[in-house]
């Protein structure tokens, strides 16, 4: 009986305390009130305050004021939270019948959960980075012809080579730019490359890319064997749906598709395309004489398999071929320059997360590039063979430190066979010539380690080292690199980078060196810049750079063998200004100033480098006229590229040809280059499916830009070779099947 009454007593106590806590009119309550402020004493609306372990609390109003009543007493913890601010815990003492007034300051939490691009000179696109170039922007840039590389040349510091897709960056040569696709080096991503007065196109499909990171200097220790710039591309893992898309234009036809199984564990993509010029030439005038007409074929795809919740195995294969003949004139020969090339590239990449926070990527890649050139007496076939195995591992050590490390082995082979003229200026069919065959190969071992440190919320550092060993020349290089970013405010950054960069010469150069004794070419970068980026709607970036070159491949003064005595520098400043007024307008202006000098010989003066283009301006604008109709315009202007003029000649009876006398190397310049391109795209429904029609007018004013100079037979008359990129109208349609 006694126990029964005890139980009832305890139960009623519980009931009483429960009803007390429910009672909204609290007796003996204490009022807690005050203000919550953030930076610069700005009131914070919507901040939440609560006594830990209870639901007693309040939300601050638009002047930051809060108040609430509580019956809790004694030492308590008050928790204050607000979106975009760091949580604060305050020790308070609540004394019965004594109201409490508090003035509380909160500080901003870490500004971004997105990755900050901790590299100067970077332009990026992707899922987790500060975007400055999207696939949609790439395909919409007038004059870019939906080509990623051409789109990049609208950014400062990059110049097109012969109005094509190959680019030269900040006064460096085009071969100082490396393209990486899912860890594999993409050595020949172009068609019609280096073909006489025919602009190259890239074979990379921008729509298949989930990440694009272009760095024109100061890049991380991850990237080896490159002097100036890196274009790092990542393809999508597994598509999320099934689509088939066809495209038909004046110069090309293509079919592409993506597929994925229901579970999302297996998927793939494919693209097939054919480039042809005949319909284009029927509508547009050209002075070029083609035989055969340029054609190109491409076929490629990916197959992806989800090996685990976060792991993927991806196979990528791509085949491209091109063929053309174009009539060309030199002092000793006039006839068809004929070029053919084929490239087959494969990459097998595995991406897994060994732990919840670490990432391991391993890839094996290969490519075979075959090229055949015939022009006058020059008749040559060459093969570039490449294979690489690479692994990268990254993980955070603490919440302020990440580490990354990796290693790679790269094999390169070069075979060349053919007939060459004795003298470069005489390619007549009866010119003195020799047969030459060479076979060369090398391996390169590389490894790196780097750390990303955040010593302070607004300060990031990436420090790394890498080493490479080149088996053919038996040389080793050691490259320390450093990048820093200091966040001045929510939207503005100061960025700097420095480092040593090495690149080994082409195997064709080793073939012409003494005992393969060419040192790794070196560039030391110094970069400093400022960026203001407000949600990618307003970007202003200014950057200055200095690159000190040494051990460049040089001509020997006394013989014909190459050496490593070349040196030089490239310095300049880039400016980039982009605005986006959603949903209508998107545009940017880029300007670059470059001063790039090199020594071609061991002794001798510094002279203008081949891509020492002093001033370059690009202006790009696209406007959404309606939700379905977009139009755009691009304007390029750049001061002339250097070239070496001929100032005289002498007749050589043994060759029946004139020998030219050249002025100082690169002592003259082409005229200023200008070009305006416009385009429009219209999205509509075609038999109930998505379709897009496009129209482009390239070189609207038909500017007579120069491809180069040639001369008559005795060099008494300089003949301007106009670029074949006349005013051209191009149209086509793409549609979903």
């Amino acid at each position, binding site marked *: 009986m006694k*126990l029964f009454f*005890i*139980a009832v007593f*305890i*139960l009623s106590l*519980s*009931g009483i*305390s*429960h009803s007390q*806590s*429910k009672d909204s009119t609290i007796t003996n309550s204490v009022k807690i009130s005050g203000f919550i402020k953030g930076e610069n004493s700005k009131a914070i*609306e*919507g901040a*939440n305050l*609560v*006594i*830990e*372990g*209870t*639901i*007693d*609390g*309040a*939300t601050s*109003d*638009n002047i930051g004021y809060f108040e609430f009543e509580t019956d809790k007493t004694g030492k308590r913890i008050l*928790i204050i*939270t607000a*979106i*975009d601010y760091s949580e604060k815990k305050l020790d308070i003492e609540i004394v019965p019948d004594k109201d409490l007034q508090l003035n509380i300051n909160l500080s901003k939490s870490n500004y971004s959960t997105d990755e900050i691009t901790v590299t100067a000179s970077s332009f990026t696109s992707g*899922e987790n980075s500060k*975007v400055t170039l*999207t*696939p*949609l*922007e790439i395909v919409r840039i007038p004059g870019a012809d939906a080509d990623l590389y051409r789109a990049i040349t609208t950014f400062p510091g990059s110049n097109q080579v012969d109005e094509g897709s190959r680019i030269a960056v900040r006064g460096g040569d085009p071969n100082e730019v490396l393209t990486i696709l899912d860890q594999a080096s993409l050595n020949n991503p172009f068609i019609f490359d280096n073909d006489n007065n025919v602009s190259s196109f890239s074979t990379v499909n921008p729509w298949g890319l*989930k990440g694009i990171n272009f760095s024109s200097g100061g890049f991380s220790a991850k990237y080896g064997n490159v002097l100036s710039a890196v274009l790092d591309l990542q393809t*999508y893992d597994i598509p*999320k*749906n099934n689509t088939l898309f066809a495209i038909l234009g004046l110069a090309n036809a293509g079919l592409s598709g993506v597929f994925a199984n229901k579970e*999302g564990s297996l998927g793939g993509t494919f693209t097939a395309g054919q480039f042809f010029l005949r319909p284009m030439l029927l509508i547009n005038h050209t002075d070029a004489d083609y035989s055969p007409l340029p054609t190109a074929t491409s076929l490629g795809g990916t197959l992806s398999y989800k090996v685990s919740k976060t792991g993927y195995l991806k196979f990528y294969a791509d085949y491209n071929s091109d063929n053309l003949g174009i009539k060309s004139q030199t002092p000793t020969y006039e006839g068809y320059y004929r070029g053919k090339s084929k490239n087959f590239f494969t990459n097998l990449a595995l991406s897994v997360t060994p732990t919840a926070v670490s990432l391991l990527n391993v890839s094996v890649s290969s490519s075979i590039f075959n090229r055949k050139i015939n022009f006058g007496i020059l008749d040559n076939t060459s093969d570039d063979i490449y294979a690489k195995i690479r692994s990268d591992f990254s993980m955070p050590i603490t919440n302020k430190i990440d580490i990354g490390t990796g290693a790679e082995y790269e094999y390169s082979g070069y075979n060349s066979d053919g007939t060459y003229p004795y003298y470069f200026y005489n390619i007549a069919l009866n010119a003195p010539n020799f047969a030459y065959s060479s076979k060369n190969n090398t391996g390169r071992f590389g490894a790196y380690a780097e750390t990303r440190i955040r010593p302070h919320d607004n300060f990031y550092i990436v420090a790394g080292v890498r080493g490479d060993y080149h088996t053919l020349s038996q040389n080793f290089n050691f490259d320390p690199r450093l990048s820093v970013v200091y966040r001045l405010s929510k939207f503005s950054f100061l960025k700097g980078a420095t480092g040593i960069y090495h690149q080994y010469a082409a195997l064709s150069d080793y073939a012409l060196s003494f005992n393969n004794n060419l040192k790794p070419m070196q560039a030391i970068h110094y970069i400093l810049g400022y960026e203001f980026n407000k*949600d*990618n709607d307003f970007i202003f970036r200014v950057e200055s750079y200095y690159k000190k070159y040494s051990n460049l491949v040089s001509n020997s003064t006394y013989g014909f063998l190459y050496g490593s005595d070349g040196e030089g520098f490239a310095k300049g400043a880039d400016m980039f200004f982009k605005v986006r007024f*959603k*949903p209508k307008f998107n545009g940017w202006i880029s300007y670059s100033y470059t001063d790039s000098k090199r020594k071609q010989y061991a002794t001798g003066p510094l002279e203008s480098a081949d891509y020492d283009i002093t001033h370059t301006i690009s202006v790009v604008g696209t406007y959404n006229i309606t*939700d379905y109709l977009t139009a755009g315009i691009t304007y390029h202007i750049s001061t002339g590229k250097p070239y070496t003029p001929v100032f005289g000649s002498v007749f050589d009876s043994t060759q029946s040809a004139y020998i030219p006398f050249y002025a100082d190397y690169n002592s003259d310049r082409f005229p200023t280059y200008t070009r305006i391109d416009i385009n429009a795209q219209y*999205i*509509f*429904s075609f038999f*109930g*499916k*998505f*379709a897009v029609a496009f129209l482009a007018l390239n070189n609207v004013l038909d500017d007579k830009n120069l491809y180069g100079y040639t001369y008559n037979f005795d060099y008494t008359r300089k003949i301007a070779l106009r670029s074949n990129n006349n005013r051209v109208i191009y149209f086509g349609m793409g549609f979903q099947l």
Partner: protein
Amino acid sequence: MKQKIVLIVLLVFLVSSFSFADDFSDAILKAKKNLKSAENKSDEKALIKVRGEFERILQLKKNTWIVYYYLSYTDFTIASTYMKDQVKDKIKKYTESGFEMINKSIEGNPDFSDSYVMQMLLNFNRWIYEQDKMNDIISATTAADEMAKKLDPNNPRYYYTSGVSSFYTPEMFGGGVDKALVSLNKAYELFQTRKEKEDYYPDWGLENVDGFISLCYLQRDKEGDMAKAKEFLDKGLAVNPDSGFLKEYVQKQYDEKNKK
């Protein structure tokens, strides 16, 4: 004796637990009611206040996953109040907070269909301020769509969200009012027999379905559609006579169409 003491202790414990459970239920049901009231008026300040209520309920450390769900829903609703004037930085702020909250909810309970419906809704907002990540938005929405349907194939809010998506997607891109009506009508049917597991589980949506069905008929404008539009508008107002969406928006659309 010992057994009796154990029994008493057990009784006290059960009663205490029941008290705390009552605290949680009472608090969350009260907050849910305040949320409905603030949402009806599309009152940003009242919604921010309600958000604070939910955040304080986290201190009870019970079923925090459902509390995070409501925090996410409130964030989404606050973001919606800025849609009319397209205040992008506010839309982004509350949408990203919404993502943070729903991710915490999913961590606590990965099998709740409505959490993935919430992800679908939040991803719609991303089109306003980060269109350039459209590939990512599409893939995130598709992934959330698949999970929401897989976990509860009879979730009316899933069909409502799909219907709204179709309503705002141009026909040429695979949307349109006819496609929207299929999903919205399915949502309507499912709501008629829907019973949530707990009274503090989300049960929103029926009047929204009615409203969007009405909008579909207004837009389609075939014979008999005006009458259908009125029918569903009235149904929605019968469910929630205070709905700002129905009174301020759908009713106005109907009145304007009716005048012509």
